[in-house]
């Protein structure tokens, strides 16, 4: 019991550090990894507070699906930027 309480406190303290950490990370790619790690610790916290079902959902969404979607969106944005840069180059080269 004492061990559970100690682990709960550790998990809560880790969350208090990791949450601002995600916000203060400025590079979106690094932020995706940071938010994934935050999700992992949040899942562990749910588990320690005896909510295994919610912990599992949090694990798959917070640590896997959300970072994946962020990376997907970032790839899309970068692709479009590269495309635009290429068209610009081509236009400048042609004129």
């Amino acid at each position, binding site marked *: 019991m004492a061990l559970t309480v100690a682990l709960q406190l550790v998990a809560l303290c880790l969350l208090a550090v990791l949450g601002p950490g995600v916000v203060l990370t400025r590079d979106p790619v690094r932020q995706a990894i940071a938010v994934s790690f935050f999700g992992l610790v949040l899942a562990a916290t749910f588990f320690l507070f005896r909510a295994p079902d919610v912990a599992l959902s949090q694990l798959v*969404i917070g640590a*896997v699906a959300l970072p*994946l979607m962020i990376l*997907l969106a970032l*790839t899309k944005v970068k*692709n*479009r930027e590269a495309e635009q840069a290429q068209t610009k180059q081509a236009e400048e080269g042609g004129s």
Partner: protein
Amino acid sequence: MSGGARAVLAGLGIAGVVFVILWGAVDLPAVGHYLGPYGDVVTPLAVFARHSTDAVSAVNFDFRGIDTLGEEFILFTSVLGVTLLLRQSEEGAKGEGESEDRAQGRPTPSTGDAVRSFGSGMVGLLVLFGTYMVTHGTVTPGGGFQGGVILATVPLLVYLSSSAEIFERIAPRRLVEAGESAGAFGYVLVGLFGVIAGVEFLRNVVPLGKTGTLTGGGTTVLLNLTVGLEVATGFVLLMLAFVDEALQRRRRAQR
């Protein structure tokens, strides 16, 4: 707005949020000392009336199965939306002779030995664990949704430890799309069992098995299977869109 005014406004907002959270947390019962009536009602109902030892699954797939149907279709339409949005730009790249390009066996950045052996070693384990999670929703925590995402990470792992080409070979788009539709339709079909039997939609009409076994919860295991299929294929479809984007970029870099 000047920097100082913005800082004051943000400070006020944060102070307000902190105050409301602390205010709400003052009278919270201690951990594990649940006060509401619903939990005490649902736990015996799940075990004795529905033969399911996981009360959360009994609630999600039986007592309020219609909500889960809605949730499943939220995911279905989201995946549909993402696929549609990403497809627009693919049209342009198709004109460049995509299939030709892919067949040439372009050199790809090689994966490290550690990633490759760890990734391929995990594949079997993850398939087993995902299937366990999908099928055992009635008995233990987890279920179709969680298991589905775990199953969907298997092709992702194959992609990370081998190549995009192999990923697209083991997860052919048409098959994945068919799987997603079948999963979404399967849920409705199980719901219609009730209508066919002459009672309400989604009523648990399949005979309940022994408590603590997979078939204990009647329709619960069937609904879990359909949700597992829908979620796994839905996420693989998202990854296919991602891999397409990555392939496009690599192709452009080589030009």
